[in-house]
């Protein structure tokens, strides 16, 4: 079959624009599979997850997800359905073409009308017998987007142009075959043709273009119109964080909010650093303290409190601590104790990670070895370690090249090879209780093979350099050195971002452990600065916390200004956050004066000290502790729900705490009855406990008028205190942190 015309020339005529090099290396040849056809199948969504790209295909026609397996796809088109799918003798009868054109019923609808350029390419290719792209053909080295970045007015438009760069130095315009998406389609949307349309609101968005296995990102910035160049009065740059935040705010024309009051700062710092409310004495003392450095003194003091270790360990147990029904109770307890101990010692973070990655010994004695008891296969260990410590998600790369990622399956299995020589001795997993002692050791042999090619993989890092490994060395040592190396910027970045997110309610990158070019930080220089500070501070987590808490940005009010109300990612104000399940339960226990008892823990234990999430607690479940049956790392969403509202309102356990004979409400009521305390003192105490601030005169007034309205003799004081306690615990000012 002879081609009357070259479809690529035909195509390029329609697309050629000045500026794109007129260099189509294959222009005189028939279209070939890898180079010409796969981009079309990808562009039109044929091999996407919901369609033929899912593992079982769609209606018997399966393609590899986003074209990661060319052999499979070619065989699927030409080798199946008895030649009906692609028929070079009568191409127009091919199912591939008829379905795509909608001349036959197609679940995906009419994708390519017969007069579409891509249809013509497909047809020509089928007619030519479906040739593969020769090995010698130029390879795609990268794509670029023009413009590289753009400032737009609200509602303005900007077309994007995508250029493919080939290994022989040639370029092709591929805009019509590129796929576009926006990180914030409300701020700036992009249509399938690459036209960016700014919305009416200021903000920023990253527009991503992808073509074959490459992508490029074009940041779009839409500044606020009435650009406020001057920071609000009261703003002061305490450290570098503040100038970097302000730079970004200026760029967007946003103004920072005012400064938090002392009481707000105190409650915030307590909840952020030790996960515990300040006591009335602590509040009163802080408010009367006249020293100018009282805020930094407070942060220093809090960092030395024992609750610090439990609270921050509690965040890390979400990420590390496995399900006891998987690895056994003893191992989990042991791991939990080890994690807490690291935070108690303020262990430098790089050493903490290195210990986990290179751990050896008994799972009943060396807590960190439980990492290897829980995750047993090199693949599982690779994905977990990379997500936790480098902010790189490799779940996708395990099976296919992910369109938004740069890593291939070969990269994945080369990395996994570092975990190929882990030996285990002992009973292993036989949960829940009977799971025996297991010893993690370095095995003398073991290998990882590529799942498709079967090739033996040599250990290699994803990027950068890792120390060479001696034949009988522990491969994990090399891996750990690579992960924790100061040159491995992801290592310090992802932890700096986690700590920032814990203190600021939002990461500079979200999700906090997903760092990649296609998910850019909202403030790159700020993230770089925090990571550098963390590295230079010897990976000291407390130092990093101190640095962030010393910034003016940390001390901003949560109240939005007219000019920053739309901001929810550039830290123009503090973002409200619901208290975490354990913190809230401990706070309820503190305020009511009735501690909670936890199964499997000594009396007097606090929720932030719990070594497992497996014990019963309707309270913790309602407020979103991790699903006890789920594998770590577990992400908490921090949602508010109707079940939470109902639980605070009506839970029998909460009611018991409020009305308990040995509880605070009864004691305070008795103090009134016996004249030891005046009602307004009781109001003050409860406000200090629940809100960390004294009541305003009007608030005291309202509380006292409730007391006056009660008439029942005897029980009057008790009922009043209980009602007030209930009202405070059910109010948003208690549930949220400003």
């Amino acid at each position, binding site marked *: 079959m002879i081609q009357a015309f070259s479809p690529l020339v035909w195509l390029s005529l329609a697309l050629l624009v000045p500026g794109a090099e007129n260099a189509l290396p294959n222009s005189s040849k028939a279209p070939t599979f890898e180079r010409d056809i796969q981009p079309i199948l990808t562009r039109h969504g044929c091999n996407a997850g919901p369609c033929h790209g899912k593992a079982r295909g769609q209606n018997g026609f399966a393609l590899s997800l986003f074209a990661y397996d060319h052999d499979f796809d070619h065989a699927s088109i030409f080798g199946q359905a008895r030649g009906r799918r692609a028929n070079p003798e009568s191409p127009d009868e091919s199912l591939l073409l008829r379905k795509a054109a909608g001349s036959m019923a197609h679940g995906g609808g009419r994708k390519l009308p017969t007069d579409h350029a891509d249809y013509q390419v497909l047809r020509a290719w089928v007619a030519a017998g479906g040739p593969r792209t020769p090995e010698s053909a130029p390879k795609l080295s990268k794509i670029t987007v023009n413009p590289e970045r753009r400032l737009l007015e609200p509602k303005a438009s900007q077309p994007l142009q995508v250029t493919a760069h080939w290994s022989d130095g040639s370029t092709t315009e591929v805009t019509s075959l590129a796929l576009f998406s*926006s990180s914030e389609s409300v701020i700036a949307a992009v249509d399938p043709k690459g036209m960016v349309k700014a919305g009416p609101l200021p903000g920023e968005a990253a527009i991503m273009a992808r073509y074959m296995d490459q992508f490029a990102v074009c940041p779009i910035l839409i500044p606020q119109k009435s650009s406020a160049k001057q920071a609000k009065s009261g703003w002061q740059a305490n450290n570098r964080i503040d100038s970097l935040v302000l730079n970004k705010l200026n760029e967007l024309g946003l103004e920072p909010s005012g400064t938090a009051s002392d009481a707000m700062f105190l409650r915030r710092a307590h909840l952020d650093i030790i996960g515990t409310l300040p006591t009335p004495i602590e509040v009163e003392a802080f408010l009367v303290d006249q020293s100018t450095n009282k805020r930094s003194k407070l942060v220093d003091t809090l960092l030395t409190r024992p609750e610090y270790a439990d609270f921050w360990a509690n965040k890390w147990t979400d990420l590390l601590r496995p399900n006891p029904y*998987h690895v056994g109770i003893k191992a989990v307890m042991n791991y939990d104790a080890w994690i807490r101990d690291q935070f108690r010692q303020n262990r430098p973070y790089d050493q903490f990670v290195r210990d986990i990655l290179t751990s050896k010994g008994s799972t009943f004695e060396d807590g960190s070895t439980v990492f290897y008891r829980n995750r047993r296969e090199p693949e599982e260990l690779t994905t977990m370690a990379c997500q936790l410590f480098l902010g790189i998600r490799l779940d996708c790369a395990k099976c296919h090249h992910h369109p938004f990622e740069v890593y291939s399956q070969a990269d994945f299995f080369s990395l996994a090879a570092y975990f190929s020589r882990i030996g285990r001795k002992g009973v292993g997993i036989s949960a829940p209780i009977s799971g025996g002692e297991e010893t993690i050791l370095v095995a003398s042999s073991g290998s990882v093979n590529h799942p498709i090619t079967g090739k033996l993989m040599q250990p290699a890092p994803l990027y950068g350099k890792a120390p060479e490994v001696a034949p009988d060395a522990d491969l994990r040592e090399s891996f750990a050195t690579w992960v924790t190396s100061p040159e491995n910027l992801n290592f310090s970045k992802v932890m700096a971002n986690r700590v920032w997110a814990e203190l600021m309610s939002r990461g500079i990158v979200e999700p906090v452990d997903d760092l990649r070019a296609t998910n850019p930080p909202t403030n790159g220089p700020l993230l770089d600065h925090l990571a550098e500070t963390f590295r230079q501070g010897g990976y000291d987590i407390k130092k990093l916390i101190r640095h962030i808490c010393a910034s003016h940005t940390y001390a901003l009010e949560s109240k939005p200004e007219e000019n920053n109300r739309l901001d929810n990612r550039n830290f123009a104000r503090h973002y409200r956050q619901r208290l975490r399940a354990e913190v809230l339960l401990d706070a309820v226990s503190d305020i009511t004066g009735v501690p909670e008892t936890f199964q499997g823990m000594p009396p007097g234990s606090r929720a932030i000290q719990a070594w497992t999430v497996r014990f019963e607690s309707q309270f913790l479940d309602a407020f979103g502790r991790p699903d006890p049956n789920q594998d770590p790392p577990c*992400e908490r*969403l921090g949602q508010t729900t109707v079940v939470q509202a109902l639980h605070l309102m009506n*839970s029998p356990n909460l009611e018991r705490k409020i009305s308990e004979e040995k509880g605070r409400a009864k004691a305070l009521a008795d103090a009134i009855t016996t004249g030891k305390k005046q009602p307004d003192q009781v109001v003050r105490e409860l406000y200090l406990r629940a809100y960390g601030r004294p009541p305003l005169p009007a608030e005291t007034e309202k509380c006292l008028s409730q007391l006056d309205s009660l008439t029942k003799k005897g029980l009057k004081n008790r009922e009043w205190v209980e009602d007030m306690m209930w009202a405070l615990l059910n*109010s948003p000012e208690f549930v*949220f942190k400003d």
Partner: protein
Amino acid sequence: MASHKRAPFHGPSRRDSLQLGLTALLGGGLATALRATDAIEVNRPAVAKACILIWMDGGPTHYETFDPKPDAPAEYRGEFKTVATTTPGVFFSEHMKKLAAQFGKLSVIRSIRHDQGNHGAGNHYMMTGAPPRIPVGCGAFVSFHPSMGSVVSHELGAPPGVPPYFSMSGMARSGGPNFLGESHAPFVVDGDPNNPNFRVRDVQLPSGMVSLRHERRASFRRQIDTYRRDLDKAVADPAVALDQHYNQAADLMQSESAQAAFDLTREPLRVRELYGRNAFGQRALLARRLVEAGVPFITINDGGWDHHSKLFEALNKRLPAWDQTVAALITDLDQRGMLDSTLVIALGEFGRTPQVNKDGGRDHWSNAMSVLWAGGKTPGGQVIGSTDKKGFSAFERVLSPENFASTIYRKLGINPDKLLYSPNGRPNLIVSDPNPIRELMG
């Protein structure tokens, strides 16, 4: 209650709320954009509005329930005789008398099989429609995928203030929400509803609290609440979201019809007797009342079906009452005109071994299991599939847990082929094989 407009149950998540403000102003947004890519979604109208899942934890025997083998040698057949159903030639095991007598209202699948022969994994497979991703042990409680109840909560919601997914008592091992988050976790109701002092926790006032005082407290709260709200949607103030939930909760407390739904004592004694005066019976009755209140998914988590020993002794005691409760539930739903819109399904994680063991019990066996299915316009009187002559394995019309889960979703008007996105953006099909069991679809 049932006529209430369904509200999306979940509040905005932290991540949602970042999107929420702008999205609310303009419509669309990332979530919508992502969903819009589900190009081939096929939505079919719902047949049923609710599902009552009777979970027989431990794995009930298929021989002594719905798949007796009277002609097999004694060591397989067991001790029980059979009872004829209303369909000629179809027999149940002898204790399923009442269900046999109303076989016209229900169907039995005898040929679901899978390869997960331990509790942790079997529970996960049947409760979520997805096999566990890694091998798990028998004692395991694992979650790799949202449970059916959580997906239904996510997709259908419930009337304002009503939790959409109940589990009584306790949560089934894999009954959790996984990546769907705490908004779609089961609302666990503990306690024995046969106990005269029983209250459904949190949706009713706690014991000892009278409504007058509760109202006084609510008014106290209103008066002292000076917390700033940023009503501007763009700010995405989570306190505003909490207010919505709080108001829904308050409405629920004040709604007489809702409060009545949770109150089993309003049920005539005759009906309570009919269901059986035991915890299981009264949970089934409460489940019916919850369906009336608009709850779309209720799991009755009924333990103790792991009969490794003394199976016949145990089942002689247990099955008649079980038969009575399930038959009463189906009859009652039918008489109230609710059966066509309510699915009733009974199963466990797997069937049990063909040969009675030396302790007079049967062990785990995932090669065959029987599932009872009624309601939601499911054609009655039919047996779907079969096991071989000795009950070793699903033999004809072999079906998978995926087919099973997809049937439930289809009946409830949820497309099992839909993608749900985890918070980190990873797409997950609700069920990997969206083909329902056609005989049940009607």
